[in-house]
């Protein structure tokens, strides 16, 4: 589904991604582990074409199509979703209005307003978001945990093929991580894929992890099975530094 080959990217003069190779198949769940500042978030943003970063080498293919020539919204319409580490506050646009516009953009179909409203409220209930939030402005005045649950609400509404979750669990208390984790588990099936950046194994509890990758200094230095997650929580990243 996603093929990244020798990807290099920079922000201005500063090279951040230094030869990333990653292959994610349909139905797979991948975990990326790595210290702060190693470039994990940049990788997510580059996959969606953030204008701040320039690709200086390598390729990104999604379902066989070269992504690099596509605009961000075109990539999203192909079925890529990013759960942001720091979701933006957008005054004046309600959660429901934004999600309806997004759903319409992604599916290309006219949305039935009442039915959409009903479905949205049902999803919000699952995520323990109170119904009034549908009419609140996007992330404005939301707590950190509410913002993250709102990201998962968008994930479940838009039903992408590939979900990129950038530290969706960070800064959350135990109960909130459980809600988010259950939400991601609800989303995942054999037809879609997830790439999860995390420092915390708890979010993976309900998910079958196929591969884990250690990300250091702008690239993946080791890939393995789910057991790598435990290894990192025990020993940290020091043992992998040598390999980078």
């Amino acid at each position, binding site marked *: 589904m996603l093929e990244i080959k020798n990807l290099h990217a920079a922000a201005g003069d500063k090279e951040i991604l230094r030869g990333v190779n990653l292959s994610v198949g349909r139905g797979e769940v991948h975990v990326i582990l790595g210290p702060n500042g190693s470039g994990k978030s940049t990788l997510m943003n580059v996959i*969606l074409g*953030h*204008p701040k970063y320039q690709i200086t080498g390598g390729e990104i293919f999604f379902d066989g199509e070269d992504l690099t020539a596509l*605009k*961000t*919204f075109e990539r*999203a*319409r192909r079925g890529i*979703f*990013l759960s*942001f580490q720091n*979701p*933006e*506050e*957008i*005054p*004046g*646009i309600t959660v429901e209005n*934004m*999600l309806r*516009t*997004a759903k319409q*953009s*992604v599916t290309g179909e006219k949305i039935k307003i009442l039915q959409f409203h009903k479905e949205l409220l049902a999803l919000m209930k699952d995520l323990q978001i109170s119904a009034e939030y549908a009419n609140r*402005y996007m992330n404005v005045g939301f707590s950190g945990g509410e913002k993250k649950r709102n990201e998962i609400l*968008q994930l479940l509404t*838009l039903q992408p093929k590939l979900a990129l979750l950038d530290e969706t669990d960070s800064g959350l208390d135990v109960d909130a991580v459980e809600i988010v984790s259950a939400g991601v588990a609800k989303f995942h099936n054999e037809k879609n894929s997830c790439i999860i950046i995390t420092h915390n194994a708890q979010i993976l509890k309900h998910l079958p992890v196929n591969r884990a990758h250690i990300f250091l200094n702008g690239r993946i230095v080791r890939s393995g099975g789910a057991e790598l997650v435990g290894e990192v929580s025990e020993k940290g990243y020091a043992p992998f530094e040598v390999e980078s």
Partner: protein
Amino acid sequence: MKKNYIQDIERALYDVRDADKSIYKSDAGLTEEIIRDISARKNDPPWMLEFRLKSLEVYKKISLPTWGPDISALNMDEIVTYVKPNAKQVDDWSQVPDEIKKTFDRLGIPEAEKKSLAGVGAQYDSEVVYHSIQKRLTDLGVVYTDMETALVEHEDIVREYFMTLVPPKDHKFAALHGAVWSGGSFVYVPAGVDVKIPLQSYFRLNAAGAGQFEHTLIIVEPNAKLHFIEGCSAPRYNVTNLHAGCVELFVKEGARLRYSTIENWSRNMMNLNTKRALVEKNALVEWVSGSFGSHVSMLYPCSVLHGEGARAEFTGVTFAGKGQNLDTGAIVIHAAPKTSANINTRTISKSGGAATYRSAVKVTKNAPFAKCSVNCESLMLDDKSRSDTLPVMDIEGDEADIGHEAKIGRISEEAVFYLMARGISEEEARAMIVRGFVEPIAKELPLEYAVEMNNLINLELEGQL
């Protein structure tokens, strides 16, 4: 590089100009002879002629304001102050001359009247050509008429209030207004009457190089309620037109008045309008103000909180495009204890337009426990445009609770990316952000104007060069 821009306001609708078929025009400029001539044609009572002549004297003595936008393009010797349309005032649209009726049809006035208004006044150049009010309201004692009729039928009331709140000596254009005013609306709501459906006046200036000086006088007696809507537009000419209207609102004890205006003058218009409300004990005035048109605007509706517990809410949006310099804001004077006010504005500038937010909040010694909060936000859509925020506060009263928040910014590129990451196209993302920016204001506008404003914020994406 890609370049995004928000379209200029769609003006085609307003820019259709009719042939000038006025039956009388005063000479250009301003002399005693012209004032006497206007007064005679309008059959003013003698005190009004005297008022006009005194105002002219004041006008000659006061100089132009030395602050704010450049209005030197205005040459009073070239402005025609009085244009009488070839139409009598009627209360049936079918009797309005075809061309004039067509103009108001295009602007949607008769349609809005059927749907959502309890009374309508329509002014074309200097005179009101159509007026109606539901019988239900007249039975309750509500008066809604043009100023000339009011001067005949309710002369004592007009004489008691006319230009007492905005005296001619206030500034040069108030003096000018006192001398040459014509047309406008008079509303009187008796004590305790709740006018549930809005009244609306629409002002259309068709003649080139003319001025419009309509006077709006609204008196809402104790515990009465009214929503009054005003719209203005004009086609574009290459000569400067002048709008120097005057609005005086008297909101008595416990009364509520909501006053909504949408101004969409053409880009050759100098809009130098004066609006003021006198708010008595526990009364409320709500201003909703949209400024989209004109070449230059100077507009700062003023609320004088005169009685204990009086309140003012000001909600305004200003959109300055190419060649426009819109200097708008609000004034609040706290002159009694426990008075409170909220000022909430949004300004947008694009394509080299300049938008200035200017406000003054004064709390007098007689106004302990005053509360005032000001929130003004500006959005610049490109590097060519300008935005300034000039709030002034003068607090003398004790225990005042004053808050002020000002923001000047651009569209957040991170917010655009966030929306695009959800599949929303770039131009739609930008339009959504701009619409979101004005949303707190848009939801206060009368529905048809809110829809219109959303249409105005219509984004386009220019291809790669």
